[in-house]
């Protein structure tokens, strides 16, 4: 095994993990400020300039709150479940390419933590394992609301995961690879259609897949308008009703980190990732991800929550057939493109 490469990659991964945690903290600030502006309020602006110290104050407050374990909870599972959600959330970012390798101090520092050839599959698998944190936490709480919230959440996440997975098949057909590195390289080529010169971003060739991915990603991260599991008018706080203090914040952290990872993924898969005009680089990916994060907040401010039967109906009766249709169409066009039809 190449120990030096392992060490350097691990170091980059460690930095990425901490950057994600910091970004997540400021995502809460960003969401509260933007949401406040959309509702003609001011939002948190007292703690530090523009309220910038608010996330830190929140963190300290949560750390100092009592950690209540209900009397009839399944103690061990109750304590471990939020940790499971939290520990898995940031790992998806490990396969996202943030740029070409840097050369510093005679070392080659990759801006991609783990270059595995099944990168997208790995991210989807992480999403599946993340469900365990929800269902175990809800089940172990020994509370009706928690259990119902967990069941709803699980049913929702697995239904939309299917749509998420199938919407990407079109991209796989075009790129011929699961590796985000390859998918990115494919998108960095230039597309010339008559007088037009366009980037080969998959949002142009896979618009339906992009729309499906975006909808499924919002549902997958349990965000409005798909935040049924935590519909406070029906289920109190859903699967984390009984959680308090820092264990509660683990679920919160996981949700926001998932949002960031999904935004990075959407940026890399459909709109060219680090590819952009003038100079390619991590700033383009950051800008694209920021747009998707803004989109999340925007949705939350605009749309009312779905009813549960509408939610499941949408996944199985509309999005799933559309995803299959997209695969068929992409396949036919590709067959024609490679001259096999």
């Amino acid at each position, binding site marked *: 095994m190449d120990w030096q490469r392992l060490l350097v990659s691990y170091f980059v991964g460690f930095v990425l993990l901490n950057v994600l945690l910091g970004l997540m903290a400021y995502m809460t600030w960003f969401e509260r400020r933007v949401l406040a502006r959309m509702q003609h309020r001011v939002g948190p602006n007292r703690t530090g300039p523009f309220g910038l110290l608010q996330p830190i104050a929140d963190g300290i407050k949560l750390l100092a709150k009592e*950690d209540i374990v209900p009397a009839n909870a399944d103690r061990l599972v109750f304590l471990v479940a939020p940790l499971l959600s939290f520990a898995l959330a940031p790992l998806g970012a490990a396969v996202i390419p943030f740029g070409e390798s840097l050369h510093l101090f005679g070392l080659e520092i990759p801006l991609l933590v*783990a270059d595995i050839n099944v990168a997208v599959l790995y991210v989807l698998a992480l999403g599946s394992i993340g469900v365990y944190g929800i269902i175990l936490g809800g089940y172990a709480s020994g509370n009706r609301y928690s*259990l119902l919230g967990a069941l709803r959440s699980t049913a929702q996440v697995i239904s939309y995961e299917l749509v998420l997975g199938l919407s990407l098949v079109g991209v796989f057909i075009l790129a011929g690879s699961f590796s985000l590195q390859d998918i990115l390289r494919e998108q960095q080529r230039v597309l010339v259609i008559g007088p037009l010169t366009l980037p080969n971003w998959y949002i142009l060739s896979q618009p339906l897949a992009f729309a499906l991915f975006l909808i499924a990603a919002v549902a997958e991260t349990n965000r409005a308008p798909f935040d049924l599991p935590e519909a406070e008018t029906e289920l109190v706080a859903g699967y984390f009703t009984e959680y308090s203090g820092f264990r509660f914040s683990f679920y919160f952290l996981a949700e926001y980190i998932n949002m960031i990872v999904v935004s990075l993924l959407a940026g890399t898969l459909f709109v060219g990732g680090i590819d952009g005009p003038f100079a390619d680089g991590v700033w383009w990916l950051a800008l694209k991800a920021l747009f998707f994060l803004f989109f999340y907040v925007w949705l939350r401010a605009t749309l009312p929550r779905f009813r549960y039967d509408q939610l499941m109906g949408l996944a199985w009766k509309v999005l799933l057939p559309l995803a299959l249709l997209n695969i068929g169409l992409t396949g036919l066009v590709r067959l024609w493109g490679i001259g096999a039809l």
Partner: protein
Amino acid sequence: MSLVDYAVIGLLVLTSTVMGTVLILVGHFVRPRKPTPAKLQPYESGVPDVNPPRGRITPRFYLVALLFVVFDVEAIFIYPWAVAFDALALYGFLQAALFVGILLIGLLYEWRKGALEWV
């Protein structure tokens, strides 16, 4: 692409788990701990809980789980075909279409039978 990349992911799993545990442990020295019987009751809108909390569950959820397994396996079979699409060309496409078609008939059947209705 090598074992190193997977080793890094393994190390990162360990790291994030340790980070979470450390956060909980740090909190252990800061936070108060004053459990009272009332505080440890499950939240039930202020009334005593009568029914067992892990009681019966609607069979709808089991149906969704079953459907999910069927279509997730479908997705897993489709993925390798999608990646090798150019090499398999028309023959592969027809085979995949047949496979998806059979499952699509299944989906339509479930639809007609009301397995997708959520009442």
